[in-house]
């Protein structure tokens, strides 16, 4: 997994691999990375908390990422978030109590031409309206 020659400066790469494998960064993973790369744990923790991409909370089974870039914002992303909050009672960054669904936001996924956009399980869905988003998410969570 860590074939970057165990170099200390490949820390961010290592964290990416850990997050990809476990879905989030747990304290144990951080300690392991620090030991393997011979980097102080404080620096590992510092990097893990600095970057938005890393999360230290376990994610829900399904993830709904709403893009809040400028183009999406102007074309109605706040409405999407409000609809999700009204339906599932979770704010961006939160997971439903049953661990089924996480609502996240992205700075910009770069698909501004089809704004507003949400990423549902790695599929980028464009030109959404609030009702459609809730319906699509409902399909997973309903069962």
């Amino acid at each position, binding site marked *: 997994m860590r074939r970057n020659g165990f170099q200390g400066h490949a820390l961010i790469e290592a964290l990416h691999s850990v997050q990809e494998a476990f879905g989030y960064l747990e304290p144990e993973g951080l300690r392991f990375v620090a030991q393997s790369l011979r980097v102080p744990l404080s620096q590992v923790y510092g990097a893990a908390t600095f970057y938005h991409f890393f999360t230290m909370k376990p994610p829900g089974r399904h993830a709904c990422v709403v893009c809040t870039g400028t183009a999406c914002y102007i074309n109605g992303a706040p409405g999407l978030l409000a609809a999700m909050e009204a339906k599932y009672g979770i704010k961006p960054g939160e997971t439903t109590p049953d661990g089924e669904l996480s609502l996240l936001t992205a700075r*910009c996924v770069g698909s501004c031409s089809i704004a507003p956009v949400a990423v549902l399980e790695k599929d980028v869905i464009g030109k959404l309206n609030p009702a459609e988003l809730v319906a699509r998410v409902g399909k997973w969570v309903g069962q």
Partner: protein
Amino acid sequence: MTSEELQEIATTEKEKRTEYPHHICVCTAAGCLSAGSGEVKKALEKEVLESGMKHECHVKGVGCMGLCSAGPLITVDNTMYRDVKPEDSTDIVRSLEDGKPVKRLRCDTSAPFFTRQTKVVLENSGIIDPERIEDYIAEGGYSALLSVVTEKRPGEVLEQVIKSGLRGRGGAGYPTGLKWSTVAKAQNSGQKYVICNADEGDPGAFMDRAVLESDPHRVLEGMAIAAYAVGANRGYIYVRAEYPLAVKHLRTAIRQAERLELLGNDVAGTHFSFKVEVRLGAGAFVCGEETALINSVEGKRGTPRPRPPYPAQEGLWGHPTLINNVETFANIAPILRNGGEWFAKIGTAKSKGTKVFALAGRINNTGLIEVPMGIPLREIIFEIGGGIPGGRGFKAVQTGGPSGGCIPADHLDLPVDYESLAKVGSIMGSGGMIVTDEGSCMVDVAKFFIEFCKSESCGKCVPCRVGTTHLYHLLERICAGDSEERDLATLEELCDVVRNTSLCGLGQSAPNPIMSTLHYFRDEYQAHVVEKRCPAGVCHFAEQEVKA
């Protein structure tokens, strides 16, 4: 690899292309992919196979064709089709046999969107398969690199780049030739680095992503030429983890180029070596700032360092480092192929060449465009962009993302170049261009950007960390109708402090969206503060809701 061998690959590839009478190119860049171009490509391949045209028709995936709002886009021989669905594949393949294009899918390529563009950076985009190095070589790729390392001295390369007048495409517009010379002259320890800044954090900008996805070899070639000119032997590409497709194409491209000895040790049998690695970002806007980026490449928190020393003198691990943006590197190979004078002929007196813009927001033709510098904004928005949808009125265009400003309708005839945009309080930025119409509230837009800067501030220096938070609270109060007249004065004063005292570019430019909207749309702020009313109807005021 010698020039002859390179030529041979190009000829073989071209011959292979003529074997097929028909070519179908499907856009597989992120924009079209999310509109379903993957399925379209599969359906077309199946259809070609089933109709027994395997030897007559070649289906390939290519990069971005520009008009992302009409995706998925495909070209069949010389005809472009828009909004293609998998079900259309039967008709498309049948059209090859009878020679009559499918009318209902046709995309008019004589529209201003296509004819008004000048393509330098995007010349191969939408034509070549980004995952095959041979395709790039067939279009003249890597010939500039080979002739540079075998025939030219580093000084001659610098001369061409200086002559071209190319300026950094990351936003600030620092002359590229000057930057290269500084790194070339810097002499300590001998080790030097070249870094490509592909941390495109501006929300609403996707030019770099498109270039990396559509033509990754062009960026690698530019980096290798830069490394030769400044005397570096290692390079890093710092790319956002949010762009998985770009990362994948880049990694493939590096592997292919190393196999052909166009990168790696002893390029083309000379003593020049250049090794490139991809470094992933992790979602921090501030890492687009060069010193923060260096920290991040080193595996640290992405906080900026005070400058000077500039990275050109003391950068990565204390060694001289050249940092340029993706689009800057993408311009290098054509400059050396055609000469600096050729490039200097395009554009205006002080801003040379072309610029790629990502058009988005409330505009008909959203997508990627490349235009010569100096083109009026009106032409971009109303001719290339096709105007505002729904018959609404134009309000402002926002350039430069969270560091830029909003330009109102009065300045639509402004030529697009570094100086003119700076004069009206905005910046060129990396190339995001977001159009707003009457339905957008400018105070709300300013609040959106300052919220962005507030959460992206790395927290190292106080003016930026505390200042942006206070600016946000002030705007929040204005938007909620809970403000007094003197708040506007406080807002202006605070903008000034943040701009003049922050450590890095993020803080220094964070107040730009507020200052420009305050300048051009003061009446909207006044309406919020005095009349407690939002002219665009975006902000909701507590009192009004109580009354209702």
